[in-house]
């Protein structure tokens, strides 16, 4: 097993623990559940996806070649990603410094609720670096309605 894998997994956090921040420090693993339609954002292709791990789901913003590469069922490692607001949506993405890689498919458990993109928070007044969850806008994604 390569060194990179171990380093990544030691730093990995679960989706339920991600908080919005302007830093690219999110290392995590998830399975891609559903892809939205591919759109154009200036010169780049973008595509929003519903991803999840065993603790929570979240919206994952894909850019450029990611849009065509990742498919539902793919298990993805995200290194140095960002979880922040982008055009009014709270999304997880690789960003300029991060990297998303497919490491497998199918064999990962997931839950669809809570959805971390549908939780609104505010900065902790005593500690501006900390976010506090204020309210759940919706237990599930409002963009990818749960399949029956």
């Amino acid at each position, binding site marked *: 097993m*390569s060194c990179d894998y171990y380093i990544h997994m030691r730093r990995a956090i679960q989706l339920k623990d991600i908080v919005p921040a302007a830093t690219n420090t999110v290392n995590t693993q998830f399975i891609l559940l559903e892809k939205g339609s591919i759109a154009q954002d200036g010169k780049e292709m973008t595509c929003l996806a519903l991803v999840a791990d065993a603790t929570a789901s979240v919206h994952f913003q894909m850019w450029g070649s990611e849009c065509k590469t990742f498919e539902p069922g793919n298990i993805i490692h995200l290194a140095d990603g960002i979880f922040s607001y982008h055009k009014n949506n709270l999304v997880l993405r690789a960003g300029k410094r991060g990297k998303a890689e*497919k490491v497998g*498919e*199918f064999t990962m458990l*997931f839950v669809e609720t809570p959805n971390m993109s549908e939780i609104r928070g505010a900065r902790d007044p005593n500690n501006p670096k900390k976010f506090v969850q204020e309210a759940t806008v919706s237990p599930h994604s409002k963009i990818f309605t749960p*399949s029956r």
Partner: protein
Amino acid sequence: MCPERLLRTVPHEAENPIEKSLKEAFLLLQDQLKPPFPLTIPFPPEYSQLNHAIAFGILAQPHLAKLLWVYSMLIHVSAEKIETLFISLMRQITGGDFSESNLWLSVEVLKILSNNWDWLVEEPIVLSSALYVYLRLLADHFRLGGSFKLEELKRMEIDFCVKALREHFQLSMHIGRDLVRILQDVTYIPEFKDIWKDLLFDPKSFQVSEFSSLSNLYWRRTPSHFFLLRISPQMESQLRFLLTFVKWGSQKRYQTWFVKKHLYWPGSESMISDIVRFICCVHHPSNEIIHSNVISRWAVIGWLLKSCRRNYYEANAKLALFYDWLFFDEKIDNIMNIEPAMLLMVNSVPQYVDITHMLLEFLFLLVDNYDVHHREMLAGSVSASINLLLRKGVVHSLDPLISCNSISPALRERLNSFLPALHLCCHKKVNEDETSIDI
């Protein structure tokens, strides 16, 4: 590990750790792998790295052809323990897939086997496994119209299977009762029609003392490793994951992905009967999993049956589901093989009673028509299956079926007729408790 992927970096895909270590070894030693070669003998710890480097050098060449050449050379030098290599190769030949690459693999593996009969007869597992695989593939290939290449493949497949059956029937018998099932799918091919006739009316012509009647095959339970042959390793790991970890209610997405990956092209339905055999006979969940919230085998089979779009494949899938019922013998058979069919029928009432109806109808059709010369034997086995399932508490009673008005009275009456032995037993048992009658 896929040889074609070596040396090629795929964007957004993590490097496989095995590939990475082979490549590193190659890059480190590549100067030593071309002339002038060093005259010193490496130390044993260096062998592993040298082997890795050589393996990378071979495998990085295009592509699977090289791998097949290596395998045929291994036979040539009588290398040990290479049967697993051939088994895993054959598992990579996808059922119902008429793409050029898949047909090419079919041909190439068959060529190696056909050119090495002396070796093959010393490897009963490879011979019987290859017979199983190519009989199944023939059933698919014969339905496809004739490109010239395919005609050549079909001819090779027929020659191989006929030779295995006519000249090495003792080894072919290792397959057991499922040999009858898969042979019946090809009896419209003249060579197999003749073999079928001889199996029925001239069993002695196969020159195997233990084989005097087709029923000798019925009483041989098919070893479970045969059912892995038509399931690729990836399909196997996904099915096992589904049946081991995924909870009731969460299966829908996994099922969609499974279909998208394995069952989306025309002809892929052919694999559904193989998947059903795998689920019934190979994947036996522990009691802990059975009593947990994990999705049950019967539910996955119900979904697979519903995925069949054509009657032919649906009928084959139902036969695969009930096959062990027809020949069940408590002394040699496993109750786990017959459990899914019963649970599917009972649990489909009342919400999906059409499934129960359809399955009962099919079961009785089988008992009456599968082998008219052995009708009573088949009925006895089905009765024994139902009795055992009730005795062991897999279901507590068949009353939900027998008293269900949505199932036709004729079917319900027929089902009841398989129960008298049990009722009698229960009645006797009650008497025993009360008065210790010596039965």
